[in-house]
């Protein structure tokens, strides 16, 4: 992994050299493109670049010129300004824990992303934080009360359908056509190219959002525990096999229970079990129960979850509690991260940024720095094949509010922010939880540095096995009933069977309300993005 990274760096430098040679030549012939200014020492920009951060090692990787989406965005703003249609500021409603990535500099000697944008465009970005988990509520509040408090919303990807139907989001097709964000760039763009863009940014065939996140649930464990010879010996003695990260859900139960020592302040596993977040674990269990996937709906939009697989997944989800913190049911991910950080858990499943936060010298609060490792999700063996499924869920997106007076400027900011260069730089910043998801991000040395090669590699592999959760109209209702019923099962108010039956019933009701054909259409559009990889 590391070798690979460094080799990439080398090749990159070589490439740059040739690039410089290139300019020399062209300028010599005297057909220097008008927009290329000679790289003055004071701008600190690499030759050929017109904007971007400067003043720190590797800054050139994040610089751009008007040939690139970021550059085009800046040019677009300049045009708007010239036409007097540019605002003096944009209000950006952000998920609280991500704000740092815009407002804190990384690396230390770098400018902040916010400052770079404001310097180049003169448009101030006013950031308003929302406690994570309340994004949708806050946005719907703004939409339904016509609060017009924000130009840009940031909501999890699953709500795209509902928010669009609510009329809260601007259709971005026009701007996308005009400014070419190149999200599908095969080298730098979204994983899965066009398919990826459709999956993340589009609803009903139109662009409504710009992805700023890569929330593929990844599994993290304490390598200091797993590699501890005594632990290994004890485990072998107990289960007659070697101690390694579980491949199947049944193994997970064994391993987690093995490490579960609440009296010593150590919990076997601390993946989420709370309202609103926990059910991603059910997703991973359920979808891994058939080759290549266990689907949620059949071709007629009928729910398939009231099935042996659904019940098994729910049961596993509930049984998992016994190797969790007794507080797990009320813990959101902040508590989860805190619990992992204080070294009180052996395994967890979390957003891909956990190593960035907890395996970081900068985080004085963390006791697990240098002790983490990543792994693929546990899976299910289906006739000899091991099916492992993660889930794409939450995934913060940025959208332009229909109440914004300056949708175009707002979009341009997002194209700039979500461009593969700016975003590589931003996602590497440990001051927030926006996660890398573009090809260019994974290759970036800074990302590698803060996410650690082991996790970057793991993310790549996990994405290949990630199923999309529901994000079409009705998603809120679908997930709510799943969530409520699973919670009822967790608290023992109903059995796994009852939970699945009730959920399936509720789902079919929602489907009827929204209209079978719409749902079927939505399901069909999302099917191609389901993984096919089996181990």
């Amino acid at each position: 992994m590391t070798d690979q990274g460094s080799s990439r760096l080398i090749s990159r430098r070589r490439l740059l050299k040739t690039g410089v040679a290139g300019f020399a030549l062209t300028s010599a012939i005297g057909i220097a493109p008008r927009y290329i200014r000679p790289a003055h020492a004071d701008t600190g920009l690499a030759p050929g670049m017109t904007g971007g951060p400067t003043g720190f090692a590797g800054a050139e990787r994040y610089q751009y010129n008007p040939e690139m989406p970021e550059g085009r965005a800046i040019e677009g703003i300049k045009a708007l300004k010239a036409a007097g249609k540019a605002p003096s500021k944009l209000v950006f409603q952000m998920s609280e824990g991500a704000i740092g990535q815009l407002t804190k500099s990384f690396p230390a000697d770098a400018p902040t992303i916010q400052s770079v944008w404001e310097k180049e465009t003169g448009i101030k970005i006013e950031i308003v934080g929302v406690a994570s988990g309340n994004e949708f509520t806050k946005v719907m509040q703004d939409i339904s009360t016509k609060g017009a408090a924000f130009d840009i919303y940031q909501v999890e990807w699953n709500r795209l359908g509902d928010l669009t139907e609510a009329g809260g989001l601007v259709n971005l097709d026009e701007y996308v056509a005009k400014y070419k964000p190149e999200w599908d760039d095969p080298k730098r763009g979204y994983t899965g190219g066009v398919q990826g863009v459709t999956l993340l940014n589009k609803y009903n065939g139109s662009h409504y959002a710009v992805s700023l996140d890569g929330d593929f649930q990844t599994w993290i464990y304490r390598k200091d525990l797993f590699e501890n010879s005594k632990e290994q010996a004890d485990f072998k003695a107990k289960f007659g096999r070697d101690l390694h990260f579980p491949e199947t859900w049944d193994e997970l139960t064994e391993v987690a229970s093995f490490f579960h020592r609440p009296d010593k302040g150590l919990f076997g596993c601390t993946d989420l079990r709370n309202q609103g977040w926990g059910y991603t674990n059910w997703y991973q269990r359920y979808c891994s129960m058939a080759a290549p996937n266990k689907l949620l709906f059949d071709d007629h939009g009928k729910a398939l979850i009231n099935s042996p697989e659904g019940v098994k997944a729910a049961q596993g989800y509930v049984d998992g509690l016994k190797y969790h913190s007794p507080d797990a049911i009320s813990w959101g991910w902040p508590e989860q991260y805190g619990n992992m950080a204080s070294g009180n858990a052996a395994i967890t499943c979390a957003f891909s940024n956990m190593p960035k936060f907890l395996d970081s010298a900068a985080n004085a609060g963390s006791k697990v720095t240098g002790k983490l490792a990543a792994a693929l999700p546990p899976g299910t063996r289906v006739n000899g094949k091991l099916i492992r499924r993660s889930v794409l869920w939450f995934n913060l997106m940025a959208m332009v509010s229909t109440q914004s007076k300056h949708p175009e400027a707002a979009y341009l900011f997002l194209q700039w922010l979500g461009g593969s260069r700016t975003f590589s730089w931003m996602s590497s910043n440990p001051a927030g939880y926006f996660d890398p998801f573009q090809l260019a991000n994974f290759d970036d040395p800074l990302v590698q540095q803060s996410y650690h090669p082991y996790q970057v590699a793991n993310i790549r592999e996990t994405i290949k096995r990630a199923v999309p959760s529901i994000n079409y109209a009705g998603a809120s209702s679908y997930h709510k009933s799943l969530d409520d019923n699973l919670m009822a099962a967790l608290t023992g108010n109903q059995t796994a069977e009852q939970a699945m039956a009730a959920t399936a019933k509720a789902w079919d009701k929602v489907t009827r309300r929204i209209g079978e054909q719409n749902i079927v259409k939505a399901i069909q559009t999302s099917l191609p993005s389901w993984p096919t990889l089996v181990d």
Partner: protein
Amino acid sequence: MSKPSWGSEALRYALILLAVAIALIPILWMVSMAFKPVEEWTDAGRTLHWLPIHPTLDNFRFIFGGSTSKLIVSLDSTAGWPILASLLSATLGTVIAMVCGTLAAYGVSRFNAGGNLPLALLQLRIFPPMAVMIPVMIMWSFLGLVDTWYGLALIYGIVTLPFSFWLMKTFFDDMPRELEEAALVEGCSRFRVFHRITLPMMMAPFASAALLVFIFNWSDYLIALLLTTREWRTIPVYMASLSSSMTGQLYGAKAALGLIAAVPPVVLGLAIQRYLVRGLTFGALKQ
């Protein structure tokens, strides 16, 4: 009268001290938490410390924008604005409630006016605000009052109106009318009477009622949660945003802010102790 024995006195003290302890422990815990550095916020799996081991003002610095090296989390806004928002909205809300409430109370108490007003106000008081918030949100958005301190103040004024009305009414009912009557016979205009005689006599009760109304407005969470989105979030709403991916819940910061939020009511409340009973019982009980 009945001669208190030593034993019963001892028992009395024991029980009272127990009650006092129970009343204080949660508050003291918050105080202690407010002065704990990040590392001491959670004691999961470890022995619990009642007092900060390394007391610090970091939490207060933090919520007021001073960066603390320990927390790699940035606050989009400091506690300054929310505190201002709470102050402004609660104050104007109190003014609205007290002015309308007092006038109406005077009218009802002296001129038998208002018809069903007293009962209607009681009903308003009993009705759970959450149940009318949808129309309120729609009205407020229509009037452009969402996320403004005066919009918040308006709804506060309405919500606490029953309270100020009933309280002031009982005060007026108790007030001897002879003086007013005399003045009226003297030929003073009613306004002058109200202004020169009634109001001065009502100053103390009025002030105490106003302070209570202020405490109520200051304590609101639900309404602000629904009617403020950005600039004018009040303290409790803002508090919710004090959690971070780095350290989980920012217990210390919340405790610090909570401490600040707790001060005015406690101080004011103790200041008007002798009116508390009457106030908190809607003027139904007098001392």
